[in-house]
């Protein structure tokens, strides 16, 4: 054995030092694993709390109380002009027909009794009767059993939110009304059913007939505008920047700005839309066209960034191969790079669209928060979108809106999750391996 030299550790010494440090290293790893688990556990706990809260409130929002009444559809009463025109039906006394059916079963008498009974039925009931007649004119002259929504106060009482132990003047429902409800229940006329108003109704101040149809269609129109603008523009920008643009100061500046744009708060895009499209171009407020344009501006950076990443992920050997047989730059990009990058681009686009679907703030800026009962028929009709509808409902005081809000959130979440699922599906299915 020679003298140990400086800087050279004998294997024996080395392994004993390694062993000595092992315990500390393992402890560090164990600690790190524990931190990780705590973090994941916390995140999951929050998520579960969120979902439990939304679903416990939201599931009842999909249902509401209805009362079944035998309505006598008297030709003269419902259709005074006798031509079944919409005008004639609106002139007719649909309300009276429903009310008299109600008075009959409840046995309501006198002015105050009838008034109390009449308040139990939703204001949407007459409209439902008219619609049923328009759909099926043969009903005129017959006596039919129809289901009408109960007013939200009666609904809240049946759900148990209003206690009859509270003094009468402190509750929104009178003793007489409670008596009528009990009577209807005894006659088995009250049912707790799937709320068709939620899905097919549009915005209303009356919670029992408020629905998301208008907002949903508004969302779809807005997204359609957004997709049509953002996808081709984003993909074209990405291809140009990645494949054609010279690498110089200007393109660098553009790149930095696109990346920064992705981090700009969405409300700023709303201000842009307000200032440019509405103030300068004088376009109308609240229309899905402007909403879509604003959201397209907002999602463009996301689409550009993910498309560029997808283009960069195409192996250079494919480009070499195409150039090698004499393909021009454009042919190389269109025939080889783009098809290979497309799944990544689509994934990015769908994620961008999901982001746009959930966006509220910029749409508030351009007036899509307006209370609009009509369902938009085109991108230039005023409308609102789902998240804004949720935002508005969350502001209303009626108990029933709490359920409707959560139910609308569930609908929105289902859409977001299915969009993300499509993105994952595309990524795993279309992605080619080479």
């Amino acid at each position: 054995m020679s003298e140990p030299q400086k800087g050279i550790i004998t294997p024996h010494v080395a392994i004993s030092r390694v062993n000595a440090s092992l315990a500390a290293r393992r402890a560090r790893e164990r600690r790190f694993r524990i931190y990780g688990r705590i973090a994941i556990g916390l995140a999951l706990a929050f998520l579960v709390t969120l979902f439990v809260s939304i679903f416990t409130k939201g599931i009842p929002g999909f249902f509401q109380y209805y009362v079944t009444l035998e309505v006598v559809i008297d030709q003269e009463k419902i259709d005074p002009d006798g031509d079944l025109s919409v005008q004639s039906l609106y002139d007719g006394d649909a309300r009276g027909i429903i009310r008299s059916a109600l008075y009959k079963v409840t046995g309501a008498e006198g002015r105050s009794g009838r008034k109390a009974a009449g308040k139990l039925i939703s204001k949407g009931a007459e409209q439902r009767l008219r619609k049923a007649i328009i759909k099926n004119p043969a009903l005129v002259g017959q006596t039919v059993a129809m289901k009408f929504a109960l007013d939200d106060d009666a609904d809240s009482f049946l759900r148990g939110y209003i206690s009859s132990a509270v003094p009468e003047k402190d509750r929104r429902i009178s003793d007489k009304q409670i008596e009528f409800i009990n009577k209807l229940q005894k006659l088995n006329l009250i049912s707790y059913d799937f709320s068709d108003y939620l899905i097919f109704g549009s915005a209303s101040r009356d919670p029992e007939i408020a629905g998301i149809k208008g907002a949903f269609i508004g969302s779809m129109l807005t997204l359609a505008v957004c997709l049509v603008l953002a996808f081709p523009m984003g993909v074209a920008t990405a291809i140009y920047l990645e494949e054609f643009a010279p690498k110089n100061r200007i393109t660098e500046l553009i790149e930095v700005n696109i990346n920064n744009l992705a981090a700009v708060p969405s409300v700023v895009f709303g201000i842009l839309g307000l200032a440019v499209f509405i103030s300068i171009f004088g376009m109308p407020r609240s229309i899905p066209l402007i909403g879509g344009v604003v959201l397209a501006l907002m999602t463009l950076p996301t689409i550009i960034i993910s498309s560029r990443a997808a283009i960069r992920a195409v192996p250079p050997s494919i480009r070499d191969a195409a150039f090698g047989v004499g393909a021009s730059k454009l042919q190389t990009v269109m025939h080889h790079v783009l098809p290979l990058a497309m799944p990544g681009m689509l994934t990015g686009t769908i994620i961008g669209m999901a982001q746009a679907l959930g966006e509220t703030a910029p749409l508030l800026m351009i007036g899509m928060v307006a209370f609009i009962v009509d369902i938009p028929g085109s991108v230039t009709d005023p409308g609102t979108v789902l998240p804004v509808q949720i935002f508005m409902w969350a502001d209303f005081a009626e108990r029933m809106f709490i359920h409707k809000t959560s139910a609308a959130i569930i609908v929105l979440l289902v859409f977001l999750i299915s969009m993300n699922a499509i993105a994952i599906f595309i990524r795993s299915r279309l992605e080619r391996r080479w």
Partner: protein
Amino acid sequence: MDIVRAPIEMEASKLPSLTVGEVYVDTPRMTTRNVNVFYGDKMAIDNVTLDIAEKQVISLIGPSGCGKSTFLRCLNRMNDTIESCRVEGQIKLDDQNIYDPHIDVVPLRARVGMVFQKPNPFPKSIYDNVAYGPRIHGLAGHKDELDSIVEASLRRAGLWGEVANRLDQSGTSLSGGQQQRLCIARAIAVSPEVILMDEPCSALDPIATARIEELIFELREEFTIVIVTHSMQQAARVSNRTAYFHLGRLVEVGGTSEIFTNPHHELTNSYITGRFG
């Protein structure tokens, strides 16, 4: 007893000021004169003058980083895709300077085809891989003609027998050696005059390598071939002439048998005897 190798001398002082051997030929297909290539400020090729003879195979050999691949990629302007790359000097195909600003690289690359180090078939069917070049250049008037081009190219690449009944399968489903022959078929489908091969066998096993070498041997009847290789045996087997590159210079060029049996420059000698590389 330890085997001690002599310290390897790779410094520039040993480089010859002029290439040793005969750089000119009687029937050149391509000629390069005083070619310098820079990547940014770094010089990758220094004053290379070399003729590439018609219907012959010339091997470019040399240690890693000697510039042989860079030189090869200059011959069909594949270096254009590298932003910082700058080429000086004159490279002619027949009597046309290929770096002339008026030259279109598309027809140039149709005339000077390329096969790469790693087999890189398109992730498309075998048929489409071969048909791609003829399609974009409009070589075939109709479907039957295209079919016959595809078949002839695959036959010439020695792949037809193996893929004739599965032309619609993906090119990437083939084995490495088959993929490389598919790439050769793709290159010859556009009827180039010159084929550049950048270490075409470096990713293949010995059996696949032997097949490619046989193929190169057959193809030299019809095409002018420039091949970069790390295998001196391969250079010896397939090429008529061999050029030895070192640190961006063309050190020596000559008939293959002469280079391998009687190299004139000491760097060439050191390299082929395995002293470095």
